[in-house]
């Protein structure tokens, strides 16, 4: 991303506090047209609050939100939700029970006449493979279908930005992948800036063009999924994207020494540090650091292996045959999957 156009939705140092808790603490984030941004964080970290602020359902206490060059939220002035062109899809979909599917989708299309509204609704339903349910009542639809109706309804007004709150959390396994595919292609076709809130790291990385990591009301890191995964700025950021082993290390002369092997660290200052090892960043090998395999568990596509050295235990993922047995072994560190964190 060398020369990126200005964000369509620009969140600048936004703060929101409730009595006794700061839900958002100076969060800055930009959303770009045609790109999908995933906001990842544990529940209660302020993700949903951010959505409500963007939609105009709540005021900001400090900072500002700008949409297409216009300030839409500043302390003391909040452009009401119906005027800002931002769509929001709720976790429980919030379909209107008294309207059919097509009427739900057409709800926001006041400016069109009857025929045009219906046509636009059907066109959107078609995009989400739901045209055959146009005249059904919402409660007769499956969860996945209801969600697509909610998304179609939000897209009907061609919002500049669309936000989805935990869109895939209610769906299970097989269905999830399929629904995700239909939904994502529909979303991409809309060319709006998309913000998806989720607490599932795998989902976030699969879906996102840009990833934003949040914890306890703060934005920890933003960037491409790969960059965030491999170069977490902090322990908390690393943990958000998946399991990570933490190993005490000693940095001397541009090299970090740990019980599981060494890692080049040309820029790190000397002294103690923490080595972050992804489970796939440590490999059982014929040579390397001597360890003791203490536990082996079958995990489907991989084996989960616990190894111990100098009193420190880490868990790694072993893929392929030659499953190690408990007892002495050797490991090597994959330098692309390991990072040195300060402290």
């Amino acid at each position: 991303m060398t020369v990126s156009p200005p964000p369509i939705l620009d969140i600048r140092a936004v703060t929101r506090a409730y009595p006794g808790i700061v839900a958002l603490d100076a969060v800055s984030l930009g959303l770009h047209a045609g790109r999908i941004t995933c906001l990842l964080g544990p529940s209660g970290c302020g993700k949903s609050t951010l959505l409500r602020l963007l939609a105009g359902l709540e005021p900001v206490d400090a900072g500002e939100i700008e949409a297409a060059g216009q300030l839409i939220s500043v302390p003391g002035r909040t452009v009401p939700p119906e005027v800002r062109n931002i769509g929001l899809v709720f976790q429980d979909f919030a379909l209107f029970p008294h309207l059919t599917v097509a009427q739900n989708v057409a709800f926001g299309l006041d400016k069109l006449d009857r025929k045009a509204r219906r046509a636009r609704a059907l066109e959107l339903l078609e995009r989400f493979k739901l045209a055959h349910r146009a005249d059904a009542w919402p409660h007769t639809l499956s969860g996945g279908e209801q969600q697509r109706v909610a998304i179609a309804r939000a897209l009907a007004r061609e919002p500049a930005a669309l936000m989805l709150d935990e869109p895939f959390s209610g769906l299970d396994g097989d269905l999830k992948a399929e629904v995700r595919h239909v939904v994502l292609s529909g979303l991409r076709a809309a060319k709006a800036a998309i913000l998806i809130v989720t607490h599932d790291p795998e989902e976030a990385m699969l879906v996102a063009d840009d990833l934003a990591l949040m914890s306890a009301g703060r934005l920890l890191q933003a960037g491409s999924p790969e960059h965030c995964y491999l170069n977490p700025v902090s322990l908390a950021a690393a943990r958000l994207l998946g399991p990570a082993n933490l190993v005490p290390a000693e940095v001397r002369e541009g090299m970090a020494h740990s019980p599981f092997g060494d890692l080049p660290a040309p820029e790190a200052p000397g002294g103690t540090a923490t080595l972050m090892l992804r489970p796939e960043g440590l490999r059982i090998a014929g040579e390397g650091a001597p360890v003791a395999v203490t536990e082996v568990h079958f995990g489907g596509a991989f084996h989960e292996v616990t190894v111990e050295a100098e009193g420190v235990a880490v868990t790694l993922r072993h893929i392929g045959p030659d499953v190690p047995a408990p007892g002495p072994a050797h490991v090597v560190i994959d330098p692309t999957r390991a990072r040195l964190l300060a402290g």
Partner: protein
Amino acid sequence: MAALPLAGVLWAAFSGETADIAGRDVLRYAATSAWLALLVGAITALLGSIAAWLVVMHRFPGRDVFAWALALPLAAPAFALAYAYGDLFDVAGELRIWMRADLGFDMPFEMRTISGAAFVLSCAFYPYVYLAMRAAFLNQSVTALEAARTLGCTQRSAFLRAAMPLARPALAAGVALAVMETLADYGAVQFLAVQTLTTGVVRAWSVYGSTASAAQFALPLLGAAALLLWIERAGRKGRGYESANSKWRPLPVRPLPPAKAALASLFCFGLLFFGLLLPCGWLLWSSLDVTPQWPRLIDAATHSVTLGVAGAVVTVTLATALALGAARLPLAARVASLGYATPGAVMAIGLLAPAAFIWRLTPGTSGFAVGVGLLIYAYAARLMAAALEPIDAGLSKVTARMAWASRTLGKGPAATAWKVQLPVARGALLTAGLVVFIDVLKELPATLILRPFNFDTLAVIASNYALDERLPQAGWPSLMIVGLALPAVIWLTRKIAMSRPGAA
């Protein structure tokens, strides 16, 4: 809005001349009211709970009809029942003369006593307990009962040890309603010559012409109303007793063996018989001999229906506005419910003082318009809470997120209310309107006090005939009220009977 008449009562009670009737009499009347309320509370609690338990958990002939028909006595005003029973079981009535002469035996009770009044009012008000308990039994989690059974309870002890305690809040709420109605009743106790606080209020005002004395009778009623309201609210807080998350399964309905089934049918039929069929039948039978004064009756029926519809529209409109704004004004809803617990007579007395003030302020307006306006105001103030409850329940189907969704789809708050909240709650609005309509038709004391001169409703005519001891004549307007209210009650109860949470 509901607070104005309440303040009016307080103001009137502590100002102005009191008539001779007050003082010691208040205590005597209060004791009667309390005793009557206790009796009616106990009887309705027993009858209503048993009926609800039978209908919800057992299968016996006629069960599906009884499920909704047991609530039908709500269509009959209590005074109509009092006229019928007062006449039918009168010591000097044909039935008892015949019994004494031909059977050599007399019924061991007198209608014109507190126990007679308790019988009549229990027949009229048991449906409140029945409906509350029925809802509670239906809402209870099947698993709680099943758990009780697996823990060694028999069917009966599961009822006593699990179902009843779980339904206790509903029982409190239902009985509180029945007692509120008992305290508010004027027509029935007046006819049966039982002197309660409400008759005291009306007498002090109509016979002695003292608003201040009337207000003094009203004060203990207001206190009782507040207490009952608190009980009812506390009962409502027990919503936690209903397990919201458990999956709904059909309740296990137990078929009864023939003998017990016959008893169950007989019990339910007995309630319906004494609550509606017998009194209405008797009123009809004894009215057949007299030619009704049709012009007067039709005139009054028009007034009743007009007031009912106007009251319903005004009350539902205000209640909807209140419900939509309730999040911002929690106190308003609380005050509105105090209005419901306040007897109509008290409400009317409370309105008299502010009314006189308005009158002086706007000398040009006709007394008729002011009278009708006040009357509708009194209905609205009294029935606001009754309308508020279904409307609140209806609006609660609109989740906050639905409203927000509408906002992000370009609708302002007003458009959201109009296009999302009200359409979703329209069934509830109709329910609320019908509840108000039925209650206005049956309302007597407030109408008596506030109506414009020569403006009669069916209830007023019935009461006037009854006071003149022209009971057969009183039968016609009473039956007309039942006839007008019955379709609305049937519609309501069938709707209630069919709904079970979790069923689509």
